[in-house]
Each structure stands twice: as C-alpha cells, then as structure tokens.
C-alpha cells in the first residue's frame, strides 16, 4: 500500500527557524509535559541524545538495560497516571524493550516508546543494529509508527501520546530513522488530534445504565467485582460511594487492589486463583455481579462456565472488545468507569443486604486468610507487618510469584495507585525497575519494591541506577531459595518433582553493599519488625533488606487453573508433629475486620 502523499506540509508556518528531527523530538516532549525520560543511547539515537544534552526540562534517567527503562516507565505511569516515556537505540536497544511493551499492553499502561532506527535507505538491508521493531511490536502495542519524513514527526508524537493515554490505555511505539532525525523542517506542535475511527466512548449509554440500575435494584446478593479499570479512570471515590450506598460487598482483581479500602467492612479482598475464600464464595453465590473495569481473566474466573453461573452480570468497561470476550454478560455498558459509576449511583437504591453480608461474615470467620507462623520467617508475616507499619500509606511494587500473591493478600491496600505489579504478562524482573520509575513520579509516599530471589536477579542491574540517583527506595527481597510458585505447582500437581526451581544465590546483602546501598538481613521472625522499621526509617537514599524465609511454603487459598470453587484448597490445618512442626502458630487475617493476628492452633514441637 502506498503511503499517502504529504499534502498538508508546512501549513504557512510562521517563518520559524528550521529544526532537526532531533530538536523537534525534544520540543514535542516538552510540549507534552514529559518530565522524565527513561533511556539508553546508541548509534542510531546519538543525534537525539545530542539534542537532549542541554535540555533541563526533561530528566533523562540512564537505566542499565532497556528492559529496565520500559519497566521504569510502566511504574512511573502506574504511580502517576501520566504516560511513561522511553528512548532507546535501534536493534538490540529496541528489542530489549519488547517485554516491557508487552507487559504494558496486557496491563493497559500508557507508554510512549521511541526507538532509534537505521537510516531509511538502509532499512531492510540487515544493516548494523537493524531490527524491524515496528513489525516485532505490532501485536503488543496499541499502535505503532515508523516516521518516514521529518514533517510527520510532531504530528506522530502528538497522536502517540493521545492514543497511549485515552480509552483503554496502552503502549505506543515510534520508530525514528537516524536520517529523519537529522532532516530539518519548521516546528509547529499540533494542538489537537483527530483520528478517523478512534474516539473512545466515555459516557455510557443511558438506556443500558438504566437497565443495569433495574437489575441492581432487584438484587439481594450483589457483588462488585472491580478491576484495574477503576484505578485507570480514577474512579475509587465513585466506587466507594456506590458500594456504601448499595451496601454491596466488594472484591477486586489483582489490579483492582487499592480501588476500595480493604479495611472497610464491605471489602472481601482479591478474588480468583489465590483470592480469599469468601470472595470466591460470594462471587459463586451472588445473584447480581457488577463487573467494573475488569476483564474476566482466566486467573479470576477459573472455569468460565461455572463462574457466577446463577448471577445476572453487568459489565462496565471502556473497551468494547473486553465485553463478552470470556463470559457472556446480561447488561454491557461501554464507557469510562468513573462516569458510568457516577451515573449509576443516582439511579440505584440502598439494598437490603444484611443477610447476605452476614453470610459473608460467617465465611470470613470460617476461612480467614491464614498462615503458619513460627521461628522461621514467613513471607506472609513480613508483608503483614509491613502493612501494619506503613498503615497502607506506601506504594508497593511487587514482582511475580508467591510473594506477589502474598502481598496482594496480606498488605491491605487502602489507596488507588499504591499497588503496582505485573499482572497480565506476569513479568519476573518487573518490580525493581518499576519501583524505581514510581519513585521518579511520586515522592509523597514511600515506594517499596518487593521481589523474590529469582525475580530480583532478572533486573538487579538497576541497583546501579537507583544508587546513582540516591532514590529513597525500599528494596525488599523475599528469599526462599526457590522459584516458589513453580515449586508450589510441582509440589501440588507434579508429584513434588522439583525440576530446575532451586536457586544458588549470591549474598544479597553484600551485593547491595557493592552497589553502595545500605543493606539489612533478617533470618528469624523476631528480627523482621526491627529490620522493617529500620528500612522504613532510612532517609538517606535507597535501602535494601533481605528476608530469608521458609523454603517451602504455599500460597492458599488456591483454585487450580481452570477449575471451580469446588476444588478450592484452603490453608491446610497444621498436622501435629508434621513438617515444620516447630512450635508454629497459625496467624489469621480477615479482610474488612480489625487487622490483628490471632493464634488459632499450636503445633507440638517434635518435627
């Protein structure tokens, strides 16, 4: 297909001076109010980096790997709601961003990624450091561009930012050939964008909203099932108001955490594979399910046919393709969650849910979140203590695996944009760079990175960046010497055949110190609180803490993949004299109740 002729070139530009593509790039970012740029220079972007050299409006952060740059941009975007911006060179620089871009696509994170490219005449020639990054990233970007003429550059950048941030957000990539960035034209940043078939629907259809209100008003066992869309659209206040007006219990997805305060009596915590027992029960037995900015992911639904099978389902989402993708719904509403919830609130009546809430409370009493607690440190305890010490006033950035689920279960999130993790793609190595990015965007709350020993080592090179900038970041590694989640599956479903899951690790404290970072280690439960308090009180730059935890522990409850609540496994009761029988107690935590640890049972210490 031929490229459209560029007819509207230089629309009577005010006899401005000619600028290179590189200068236009910089001016455009300033026009977009970009404050931080995460990147790594190279041959194809050397001209762009030259143009950046004297610019003080933009803080360029030199990461130690391009993957770190994209995850940092993701963390920045998740923490602030602003787009994360990345600049890398061609070839390997560009391909190293792919994981972060795919991660952002899955989790609807607004990114604008600029990649260098070989000069136009060399494209397709297998030139040095050439990669068809537009082709490579086509399936994992919301949209992408190859800029073939400097006169298109400003317009393209304007479109990219608009597309990344509007509707269901996502990553946009712009490929910048080296010669295009050296060409000159006048600079005139467009004030607005019009795209022929891209105009996200924000206000929900009123008839659908009325229909939803009717369904809700007839409910006796309603559940609000809230996903990341509620946070992306800044709808936490509307959600909280609606839940309280309806007296409707709330469960959130992994990305929905923080949209509803978990100490509220209506809170049920997370649902799904490692959700709370009671949230999964409530969803199973509800008569009306109100899905808000969620996408019925397989980690949430398990067996889709049995998911809230008896319930009338209302689904509010800005992305029409998210609706009825996995589960057929009765009342779809396409629109911005914030606006739809606000409109809905005026049309619904307080519901009589006393009996329903009592049933849920009974489930909470019978099956609270719980874990073994004793001399050996439990990751759950570390996270629970952290939640208590910070009172939820912290941004927690997790990696992927067991610690991620435990953080989701035990931290008790209270505010939107305080829980950042890689949910959809499940990218190990996400936490450290993403937390770094979050610190560049947010200084009002402490930022805490939590990783496992496996994930930490997937992007630990960013320790250098963090120390260089003396970022006030708390870096916690939960070390069990295993790829814990894979090990858990091998234990439960593969006859305990531990294939390639045990890690031989470096001395993490000395590693952190080698980077120039203050570091602590806790190896016994009695040391945990002290280390956490010291770390949280540390003010001079980053601080690292390693928690050496029980090697073999499992995340419960668990609904095995693709199954129903009938197969839900709760934390096993302690076996007297069984494994780990070292005087452990069982600590319990209930969502929506006073957060205290009560001792349920003692295990005789004769392991």
């Amino acid at each position, binding site marked *: 297909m031929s490229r459209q002729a560029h007819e509207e070139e230089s629309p009577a530009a005010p006899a401005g001076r000619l600028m290179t593509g590189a200068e236009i790039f910089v001016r455009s970012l300033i026009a977009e109010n970009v404050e931080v740029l995460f990147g790594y220079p190279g041959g194809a972007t050397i001209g762009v980096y030259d143009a950046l050299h004297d610019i003080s409006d933009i803080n360029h952060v030199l990461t130690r790997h391009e993957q770190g740059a994209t995850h940092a941009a993701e963390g920045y975007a998740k923490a602030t709601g602003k787009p994360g911006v990345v600049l890398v060179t061609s070839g390997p620089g560009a391909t190293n961003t792919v994981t972060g871009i795919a991660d952002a696509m899955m989790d609807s994170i607004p990114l604008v990624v600029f990649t260098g490219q070989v000069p136009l005449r060399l494209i397709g020639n297998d030139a040095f450091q050439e990669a068809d990054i537009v082709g490579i990233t086509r399936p994992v970007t919301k949209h992408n561009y190859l800029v073939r003429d400097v006169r298109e550059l400003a317009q393209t950048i304007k479109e990219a930012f608009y597309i990344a941030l509007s509707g269901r957000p996502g990553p946009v990539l712009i490929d910048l050939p080296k010669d295009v960035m050296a060409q000159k034209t006048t600079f005139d940043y467009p004030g607005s964008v019009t795209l022929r*078939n891209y105009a996200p629907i924000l206000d929900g259809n009123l008839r659908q909203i009325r229909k939803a209100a009717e369904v809700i008003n007839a409910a006796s066992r309603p559940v609000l099932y809230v996903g990341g869309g509620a946070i992306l659209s800044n709808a936490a206040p509307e959600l909280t108001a609606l839940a309280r007006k309806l007296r409707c219990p709330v469960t959130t997805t992994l990305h929905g955490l923080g949209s509803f305060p978990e100490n509220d009596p209506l809170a049920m915590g997370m649902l799904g594979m490692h959700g709370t027992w009671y949230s999964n029960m409530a969803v199973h037995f509800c008569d009306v399910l109100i899905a808000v900015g969620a996408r019925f992911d397989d980690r949430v639904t398990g067996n889709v046919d049995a998911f809230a099978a008896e319930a009338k389902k209302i689904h509010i989402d800005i992305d029409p393709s998210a609706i009825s993708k996995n589960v057929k719904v009765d009342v779809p509403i396409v629109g911005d969650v914030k606006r739809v919830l606000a409109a809905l609130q005026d049309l619904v009546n307080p519901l009589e849910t006393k009996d329903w809430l009592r049933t849920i409370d009974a489930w909470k009493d019978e099956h609270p979140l719980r874990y073994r607690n004793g001399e050996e440190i439990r990751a759950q305890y570390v996270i629970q203590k952290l939640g208590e010490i910070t009172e939820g006033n912290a941004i927690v950035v997790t990696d992927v695996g067991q610690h991620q689920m435990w953080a989701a279960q035990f931290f008790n999130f209270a505010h939107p944009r305080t829980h950042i993790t890689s949910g959809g793609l499940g990218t190990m190595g996400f936490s450290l760079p993403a937390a770094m990015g979050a610190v560049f965007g947010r200084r009002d709350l402490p930022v805490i990175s939590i990783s496992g020993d496996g994930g930490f080592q997937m992007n630990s090179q960013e320790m250098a960046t963090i120390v260089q900038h003396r970022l006030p970041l708390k870096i916690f590694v939960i070390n069990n010497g295993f790829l814990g989640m894979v090990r858990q599956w091998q234990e439960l479903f593969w006859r305990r055949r531990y294939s390639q899951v045990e890690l031989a690790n470096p001395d993490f404290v000395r590693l952190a110190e080698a980077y120039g970072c203050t570091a602590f280690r806790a190896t016994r439960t009695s040391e945990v609180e002290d280390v956490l308090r010291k770390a949280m009180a540390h003010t001079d730059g980053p601080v690292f803490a390693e928690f050496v935890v029980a090697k073999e522990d499992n995340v419960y409850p668990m609904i095995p993949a693709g199954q129903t609540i009938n197969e839900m496994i709760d934390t096993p009761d302690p076996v007297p004299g069984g494994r780990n029988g070292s005087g452990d107690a069982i600590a319990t935590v209930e969502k929506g109740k006073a957060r205290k640890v009560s001792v349920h049972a003692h295990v005789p210490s004769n392991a």
Partner: protein
Amino acid sequence: MPMSQAMLNTQAPGPADEKVKRHTISILVQNKFGAFNRIAGLFAAKGYNIDSLSVGPTEDEGVSRMTIVARGDDQIIEQITKQLNKLIDIVKVIDLTFESFVDRELVLVKVHSTNDTRPEIMQIAEIFRAKVVDISPKTLTLEATGSQQKVDAIIKMLKPFAIKEMARTGRVALKREFQGEV
C-alpha cells in the same frame, strides 16, 4: 493489490459445528504503512480462520476496502469485529452477514484441453458466461465472475478436464442500498 486467499487458509473447517457460520466482513482501512499487516496479524494472533481476503482501492484514495470471509460462531465473529475496530488505522468495519449485500468473486482457470475437449469446455464457459482469455494448443484459460457458489460450480465442472492452475480473487462485497424492503 489483490491477495491470494491460499496463504491465509490456516485450518480446515471444524467437525460439523452448527454454530459456526461464514461471515463476510467489509473493512475500510486507511492506506498507512503496515495497516494491512495489522489486520492479517490480528487474525493470526487471535487464531481466527480466514477463508478469503481481498483488498483494493476505493473511491477515497486514502482508503482501501478489504473484504474478509471468516468462519466462527457468533461470539468469535463479534470479537473479530471488535478487535478490528480497535485498530487505529481502520475506518469502518461492517459484518455484512446481517445485511443484504451483493458479492462477487473472480477466478482465472487454466485447464488442459485437446482438440476433442475444447468445444465441451467452451460450452461450459458459455453456460457460466465465462470468457476465454488465453489459449494454447494444450490449455485454455477462462475468466469467470460471480457469487462464490457460481465460481465453485464452474471449477467443479472443469475439474474432470484437469485444472492446471487457478487463481481466485476471494470475495468482494458491498452492502445493498435498499435493505430488506425492496
């Protein structure tokens, strides 16, 4: 730029699944670098089957029309149209299956012929209002246009004479101006 249908025919139809229907989807797409790739890539990435695909210019020189015939149950086709609508370069997506529409396909068939069989082949061509567009001592090339069924039928009739080569355009379609009432 007409596209061969063969390259996209990824899978044979499933075992007599009654919910699976053939849908004709008409797509208006901006002539942007890589736009065509995005559409083909979407079908591949989501595992949707394409029966045929054709693309060519329209009255608007910035826009091409792509006609895709795809198979799937209603939910899959709904997802396909929604996913297509999400592509920034796409101007419009219409599932013509729910409309009244005209559709045509063109085929070029090079068939073996001898002095004995040539009259018979020409007779078949006449019945289908096909044109002879090329001739050699051993072959005859016919051009036929019509609905997919008609094209299927002429191919079936020519098969016994041994088809040497064949090129089909895939279906192109437009919505009828009068829907239903005429």
